[in-house]
């Protein structure tokens, strides 16, 4: 029996994830209770918000150390994924560090002076898919993104995306997974990733 815990903290979008799981027939608990989180079979760390307000909130409640100690499949979504990196330029914030990479801000123009709109908002495609959670997801599958900061490409990258430059659309290290896009808003392709995660 799957017991999915969604980490409760000071970031929005949690309800959308809950509804997406409901559509897949999976009930989840939104909680910040350490014991409930530790005992769950899968943990989802969603979020829309800012790194510099989220990190102090997590630290005050000891959720940072708890999350680092977890061994079950763990999925960070959007801000959740960025918080799993080492450092974010958003408010110059030290983050959890499951992934030893930096999160940077999209700049206003590329090297050719072409304007870059931020946030990167809308549907963009993934490439170089390399993980069990990408099983059944096509190369160039489209996902829905909304973000102004991005994680660099690294050895943990399991899917890349281009917006002015290549960045990490998804990351994995051991049991820790992160996706920059909103699986819960990415139609059937996003649902496939959630399903894959839940079968780990």
């Amino acid at each position, binding site marked *: 029996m799957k017991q999915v815990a969604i980490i409760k903290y000071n970031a929005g979008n949690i*309800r959308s994830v809950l509804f997406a799981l*409901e559509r897949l027939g999976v009930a989840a608990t939104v909680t910040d209770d350490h014991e409930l989180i530790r005992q769950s079979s899968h943990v989802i760390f969603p979020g829309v918000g800012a790194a510099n307000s989220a990190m102090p909130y997590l630290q005050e409640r000891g959720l940072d150390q708890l999350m680092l100690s977890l061994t079950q499949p763990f999925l960070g979504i959007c801000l959740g994924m960025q918080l799993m990196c080492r450092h974010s330029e958003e408010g110059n914030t030290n983050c959890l560090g499951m992934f030893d990479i930096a999160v940077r801000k999209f700049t206003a123009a590329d090297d050719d002076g072409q304007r870059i709109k931020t946030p990167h908002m809308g*549907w*963009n495609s993934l*490439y*170089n898919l390399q*993980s069990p959670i990408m099983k059944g997801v096509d190369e*160039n599958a489209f996902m829905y993104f909304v973000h102004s900061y991005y994680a660099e490409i690294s050895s943990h990258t399991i899917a890349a995306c*281009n917006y*002015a430059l290549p960045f990490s659309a998804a990351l994995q290290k051991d049991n820790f997974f992160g996706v920059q896009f909103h699986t819960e808003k990415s139609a059937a392709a996003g649902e496939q990733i959630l399903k894959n995660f839940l079968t780990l």
Partner: protein
Amino acid sequence: MSNVNSQEQQPLSSLPLGRCRGSAFGGSGLTKRIIPCLDIKDGRTVKGVNFVNIRDAGDPIELAQQYARDGADELVFLDITATNEGRKTFAELVLQIAKHLNIPFTVGGGISSVADASRLLEAGADKVSINSSAVKRPELVDELALEFGSQFVVVAVDTRLLNEAGEPTLDYTKYPAEAHHYVHTHGGRQATELKTVPWVKEVYSRGAGEILLTSMNTDGAKTGFDLPITKAVVQAVDIPVIASGGAGQKQHFVDVFTKAGADAGLAASIFHYGEIPVPELKQYLATQQIPVRL
């Protein structure tokens, strides 16, 4: 763990970190969005023809799910109910939409405070759209951006080209868009003294995350989007611009993306009444080299 898709690919860590554009390393880049708009009154879908007459067009949840299956990229739901009771019905509908829809959606209509927006966010909306309330009190844009983030705040702007007598005109040779397009409120019926281009710059600087631009000159006419004002707005701000008003043919979407630089195209009746099915439109855009999600 095994790499399911990794056979012929270079390790990602060897990709250059320098800037590139388009698909130099793979992927499509950001696509142009197609957005059906559903006007809602008392829990049902309606569409105003030139914003005045309305005609019933179905159950919003059923219609929304059909659009999601058809490949619509996003949906916009506008509450045109004026009563408090209607507002409550709308919030309940937003919750049902959030439960059933697997693509993003924006809601608008009657939002004039952080508390109004908060209720809709709680119900599961991805973005809120504000219009007349921002004209009345521009600080609302700052408040919403601060509270929820810019990505949550869409500012809808109804605009019309007016001559020196204040009469609608389409004579762009005589009346350039930047100088003669004026913001309208109350469903586009009431002209204000605000010029459209400076107004979008102002809401952008106050933290708007997206502009939904509807030209009253072209809305309902099916003669094509209003390209001059759309282009002027696209050039004025560094946030996405959704063009609305006037789509009647597939080529009109190509024009608004390639000639005016819009990020998304919004329409209502042509989708609701099946005049241009969304899948057919997106296939056509792909053949015209417009990046779209298929």
